[in-house]
C-alpha cells in the first residue's frame, strides 16, 4: 500500500460488497420442521371430499405398486423401481397439476405418470423392455421417465421458460403452465440439479422441484449424500423458495404442493419442495436392501405408512367406514385385474422400430441396416418354416 498516494487510494473501509440486488433469505427458508396436517387442527378444515379422493387414489396407487412388483416376479417386467411408501408424493404430484401443466418424472415415478391418466401398460413400457417410452408425451404432457439422475430438471426449467416466452409473444395463446420436476434425494447431488435451480431462479421460471427424500440413494444414506441442514435449504442459495413437508402425510403433501404450483403459476418464481418419505421396498427387484438398512428401521417407517396414517385419520374424522374401505379395496382389485389384462399378450415390438425414429428421416446408412435386418429375419422365418415342414413329414 505504500506506493499508493493516500488521497487517491480506493475506500477500503466501505466498498459495496454486492454487485446485484441482495435479497433477504428469510422468506426463502423452509420451516425447521416438515409441514404436517394429519393430527393437527388444520385437518379439520381440510376439504372432506378431497380427503376421500386422496384416500381412494392412494389405495389404488398402492395396488398398482403391488401389481407391478408381481409382474416383475413373473418376468413380465425387466425391472420395477417401486414407490411403495411414497404414494402420497406420487399421487399428489399429479393431482395438483392442471391439464396444461407438465410433469418431468424420474424412473421411480411410474405411479405419478399413471395418476396423470396414462394407461398402466404404457407407463410401464420402459420397465417391460418393449420400448424406451410407451406414452405420448404431448398428449399427456409428461416427459419420458428419466433414468440419468436429475437430467430432467433443467428440461423442466427450459419448457416452463419457453411457455412464458411464447405467452409474451402471443398473449392469446398463453397457457400459464407450470412444470413439475421429480428428483430423488440422491439426485440432488448431481450438477444438473444445481444448474436447474440456478437457471430457474435467474429466469424466474414457473417450475416446482419436488425432491422425494426417501433417505437413500440405493444403499447410500442421506448423511453420506449431503451436509446441508435440509435438502430444502438448497433452494436458498439459488434465490428460490424452499419448503419442507412430511411426504407421508397426504393432506400436507397436497396442500404444500398445490401452494407451490400456484406460487409458480402466479409468476412469483420457482419453488423447491422437499418431501420426507421412505421407500418401503428395495431400490428395485434386483436390490438386496438388507445389506444397508435394518428391519427395525423399515418397521418404524411401516408404522408411518402414508396409507395407514390417512385411513386412521379418515376413520377418526368419520369420513370413512368399513364399507368405504371395502369399496375402495374392490376398486383397487379392479385396477389390478385391468393391469393383468393389459399385460396378457401385449404385442411384441417390431424390430423395424429400431431404425424408424433415430432421425426424422432415416439416413441412407440406417435404411441399409434396416433392410439387412429385415432380410435376415425373413430368411430365419423361411428356415423355421422349412424345419417345421420337414418335421411334419
Amino acid at each position, binding site marked *: 500500500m505504500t506506493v499508493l498516494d493516500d488521497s487517491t487510494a480506493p475506500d477500503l473501509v466501505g466498498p459495496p460488497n454486492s454487485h446485484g440486488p441482495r435479497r433477504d433469505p428469510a422468506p426463502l427458508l423452509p420451516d425447521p420442521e416438515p409441514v404436517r396436517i394429519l393430527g393437527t387442527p388444520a385437518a379439520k378444515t381440510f376439504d372432506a371430499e378431497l380427503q376421500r379422493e386422496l384416500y381412494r387414489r392412494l389405495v389404488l396407487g398402492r395396488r398398482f405398486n403391488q401389481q407391478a412388483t408381481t409382474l416383475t416376479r413373473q418376468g413380465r417386467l*425387466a*425391472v420395477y423401481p417401486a414407490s411403495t411408501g411414497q404414494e402420497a408424493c406420487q399421487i399428489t404430484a399429479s393431482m395438483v397439476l392442471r391439464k396444461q401443466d407438465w410433469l418431468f418424472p424420474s424412473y421411480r415415478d411410474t405411479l405419478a405418470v399413471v395418476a396423470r391418466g396414462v394407461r398402466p401398460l404404457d407407463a410401464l413400457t*420402459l*420397465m*417391460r*423392455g*418393449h*420400448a*424406451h417410452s410407451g406414452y405420448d408425451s404431448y398428449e399427456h404432457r409428461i416427459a419420458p421417465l428419466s*433414468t*440419468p*439422475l436429475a437430467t430432467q430438471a433443467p428440461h423442466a426449467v427450459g419448457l416452463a421458460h419457453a411457455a412464458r416466452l411464447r405467452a409474451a409473444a402471443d398473449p392469446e395463446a398463453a397457457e400459464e403452465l407450470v412444470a413439475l420436476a421429480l428428483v430423488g434425494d*440422491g*439426485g440432488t*447431488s*448431481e*450438477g*444438473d440439479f444445481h444448474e436447474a435451480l440456478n437457471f430457474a431462479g435467474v429466469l424466474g421460471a414457473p417450475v416446482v422441484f419436488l425432491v422425494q427424500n426417501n433417505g437413500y*440413494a*440405493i*444403499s*447410500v444414506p442421506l448423511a*453420506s*449424500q*449431503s451436509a446441508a441442514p435440509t435438502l430444502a435449504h438448497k433452494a436458498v442459495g439459488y434465490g428460490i423458495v424452499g419448503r419442507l413437508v412430511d411426504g407421508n402425510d397426504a393432506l400436507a403433501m397436497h396442500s404444500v404442493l398445490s401452494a407451490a404450483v400456484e406460487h409458480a403459476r402466479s409468476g412469483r418464481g420457482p419453488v423447491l419442495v422437499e418431501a420426507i418419505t421412505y421407500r418401503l421396498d428395495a431400490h428395485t427387484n434386483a436390490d438386496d436392501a438388507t*445389506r*444397508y438398512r435394518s428391519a427395525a428401521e423399515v418397521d418404524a417407517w411401516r408404522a408411518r405408512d402414508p396409507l395407514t396414517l390417512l385411513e386412521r385419520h379418515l376413520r377418526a374424522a368419520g369420513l370413512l367406514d368399513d364399507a368405504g374401505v371395502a369399496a375402495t379395496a374392490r376398486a383397487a382389485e379392479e385396477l389390478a385385474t385391468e393391469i393383468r389384462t393389459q399385460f396378457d399378450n401385449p404385442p*411384441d*415390438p417390431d*424390430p423395424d*422400430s*429400431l*431404425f424408424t425414429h*433415430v432421425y426424422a428421416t432415416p*439416413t441412407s*446408412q*440406417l435404411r441399409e*441396416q434396416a433392410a439387412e*435386418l429385415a432380410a*435376415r*429375419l425373413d430368411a430365419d422365418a423361411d428356415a423355421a418354416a422349412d424345419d417345421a415342414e420337414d418335421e411334419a413329414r
Partner: protein
Amino acid sequence: MSTTMVAALNTALRDSMRADANVHVLGEDVGALGGVFRVTDGLAAEFGAQRCLDTPLAEAGILGTAVGMAMYGLRPVVEMQFDAFAYPAFEQVFSHVAKMRNRTGGRMGLPITIRVPYGGGVGGVEHHSDSSEAYYAHTPGLHVVTPATVADSYGLLRSAIASDDPVVFLEPKRLYWSAADFSPAEISTAAQVPPIGRAMVRRPGTSATLLTYGPSLPVCLEAAAAARSEGWDLAVVDLRSLVPFDDETVCAAVRATGRAVVVHEAAGFAGVGAEIAARVTERCFHHLAAPVLRVTGYDIPYPPPMLEKHHLPSVDRILDAVARLQWEQ
C-alpha cells in the same frame, strides 16, 4: 478353483489395496453394498469406509475429486456405476484426466483407474447397456483396456492400477458372471501380470481372422467353432487393450490368414472397428485377399431389452461376413 469375473476383479482390488496404501476406491454404493455388481464387496469392511468411499451421487464430482487425490500422490480407483452414467464425468475425464500430464510438461501424471461396467446383453433398460469405448479411445492421454476372461480381469486390473497413466477399465457386464478355473496365485509375480497394450490370440486359425474384444469374444469363439462345419478355420484375436493398440500381434494374425473381420457390439459408424480396419488395411494391404469387414451393433441408440438380440453381433452375422471375404478364386 472356479472363479467369476466379479470375484477376480474383487480380488484384484483387494490385492492392490493390500500392496499399496495409496490405492483408494471411490464411487456410488461401493461401500456397504459392495457396488451394484458386488465388485467392491468386502473392501470397506477390510480397509475402512475412507479407503472404500461411498461418495455423493455425482459422477463429475467423483472424477474431479479423484484428480485432486491423484495430484497429491494417491492412486484412486473410481467406479462408474454404469456406462451411460459416466457421461456427467466426461468433462473431468476429457479436459483433465486425459490431459494433465501433457499440460504440465510431464510433471503431473494422474494414476487414476476408471472402472466402467459396459455393454449390453443383460436385459437392461435404457442407459444401462451402452458401449462407450470409442469416446474414450478417441481421446489422447487415456489408456483403454477391456478384459474378456476371468484371468485377464484380475491381471489387467492390477496392471491398470499400477499404471502411472490414467486407465479407462471397461468391464463387460455380460461376462461378469462367467466363471473359469483361476487363482490369482497363478500370476503372483509381476512378470506374469499381463502388460497393458498386448493382444492375445485366443484361437489359432488359417482361413480368416476375427478381431474382437471384451463382450464380443465369446460370440467370436462360438462363430469359429461353428465355422468348422463350413470348412473355415478361423483365428480369434482378443485385443484386450484398445489404447495402446497392439499392431504387431494383430497384423501378424491377419497376415497369416489374409482375411479379417472386426467384431464389436458398439455402433459401427466411427467406432473402434473403423480404426482397426484402417490400421490393418494400411499395414497388411498386400497380404489381404478381401477388404476388412466389420460386424457391429447398428447405428442406433442401444435398443430396449426385447429387441437387443437383433442388435448384438451373432454367430450368423459373423459367419455371413466371413462368407463375404471373396473366397471364390
